[in-house]
């Protein structure tokens, strides 16, 4: 069955996707909230920047991130100055890159969910003595909960599936940056088709189950009062 190397790659992949999802919940929620509610003119440019990873080739995104995080890039200079070294070819470098790469998959479903909640429930909450922050956590978040679930699932799954950015930023270090998709690539390169088949099947089933969960979920999220 799966080799130790395969299992290590799967574990690394899940850890990466889990951490990225948590970080994006913290970063993506305020961005989505702002995009859903602002009337500022720069809503459109910000929205476009957030959506960029949807259309950019992963190699382009990876290339810029590599430059930025490298020893001569601004991010690299910063991480070196705080004694963290440089990020490329480390697990945390992958985390940072994946946060950018998966950003739209968190922000866009959340933005849609917040827009669907609308102004009214928050106005009602204000007339019932709830401060804006109170209303956000007790009204907006519960009402947008289906959006949070689908955004998290999409972000997690999308991070599991990334390949190009990983190659650019992380290379292929076992236990550090060799995630499942890279491991499959290695198997194929080494003409180990049997191993490639097994790991690919795992990824296929995983992706299908994730999408199935999402599609089963959707109808129930459309209830309203």
């Amino acid at each position, binding site marked *: 069955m799966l080799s130790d190397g395969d299992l290590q790659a799967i574990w690394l992949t899940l850890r990466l996707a889990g951490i990225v999802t948590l970080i994006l919940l913290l970063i993506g929620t305020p961005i989505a909230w702002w995009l859903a509610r602002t009337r500022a003119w720069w809503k459109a440019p910000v929205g476009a920047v957030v959506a960029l990873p949807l259309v950019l080739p992963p190699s382009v995104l990876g290339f810029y991130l590599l430059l930025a995080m490298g020893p001569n890039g601004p991010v690299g200079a910063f991480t070196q100055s705080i004694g963290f070294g440089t990020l490329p070819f480390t697990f945390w470098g992958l985390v940072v890159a994946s946060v950018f790469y998966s950003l739209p998959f968190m922000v866009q479903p959340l933005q849609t969910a917040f827009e669907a909640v609308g102004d009214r429930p928050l106005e*009602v*909450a204000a007339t019932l003595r709830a401060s804006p922050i109170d209303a956000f956590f007790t009204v907006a978040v519960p009402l947008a909960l289906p959006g949070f679930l689908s955004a998290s699932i999409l972000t997690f799954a999308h991070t599991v599936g990334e390949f190009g950015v990983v190659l650019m930023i992380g290379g292929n270090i076992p236990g550090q940056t060799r995630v499942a998709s890279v491991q499959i690539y290695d198997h194929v390169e080494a003409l180990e088709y049997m191993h490639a088949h097994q790991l690919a099947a795992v990824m296929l089933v995983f992706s299908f189950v994730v999408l199935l969960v999402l599609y089963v979920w959707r109808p129930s999220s459309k209830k309203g009062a």
Partner: protein
Amino acid sequence: MSNFKAKFHVEWPGFTLDVDLNLPERGVTALFGHSGSGKTTLLRCIAGLERAKQGYLSFKGEVWQDETTWLPTHQRPLGYVFQEASLFSHLSVLGNLRYGLKRTSDIRNPALDQAVELLGIGHLLDRKPAHLSGGERQRVGIARALAVAPRILLMDEPLAALDLKRKQEILPYLERLHDELDIPVLYVSHSPDEVARLADHIVVMDGGKVVTRGPLVETMARLDLPIRLGQDAGVVLDAIVAERDETWHLARVEFAGGSLWTRDHHLAVGHRVRVRIQASDVSLATQPQEHSSILNLLSGVVDAISDDEHPGLALVRVRVGESNLIARLTKRSVTALAIVPGLPIWVQVKSVALME
């Protein structure tokens, strides 16, 4: 004079709100006008849901807004009922009712119990909003606003989203509010019926400005104003059921100055009612008409005459005791009967609409 002052100037593309009002501190005040007249915007400015750049608002000695102060909505001691009930769909009815209660500093639980009792929603507390009818939802919405023990209640067309049957279901509850609540209520409406039934005072708005304001009964009896509750001019009178005639299914209601027969609505003697009499249902005669089908004959004195919208018609106000009635006549009749202010006259009232 008044402790409730609202002054706002709001300018949006194509709309200007410009009001400067002293509002009554008790009873139900209707903000009445067509859609786009600014009545909802005024209410939202008072609630702090809309922020007028220039404005002054004080309520019972507290300044809610001036050049330097702006109290956010959640710090204003008000209750607000929206046009759609806007219940929180993730909470049960009880959860909705408790939402505001938990956030009020003085936990006066009676407010919740009273609100539940007043709106008759005790049997719904465990339900989710999705499982309520439209009328039930709005009753919960009103109870939720009352549960925070507000010092003023703002209602933005609470019945407008409901069909006629649901309206009839809720109106009695609103009348109970009127009778039992001792806080001022601002009630936005474009419905003449609701205003005539519920309001003590009226503020008529048009194009973002206040056209007229005053006690409802007096304001309705003014001839010089373009206030039309519905298509027709008419007056509203406060009255009491004085007598019931079981044989003919009629009831006699007494108002300040006389009494009128109307269809019996099975209301007990002594019950306070409002009656609305449209100008087109009133005719005048210089002699008492003995052979007439019309039951209601009152004696009064002509008070004022003014032109109606149509060049052939006039509105004549007649003083009956302490009350006023308005009759719509042709100008030809006014001339033929030589109707002038001060003339004693007989008033025939063909139809009286009773509002419980």
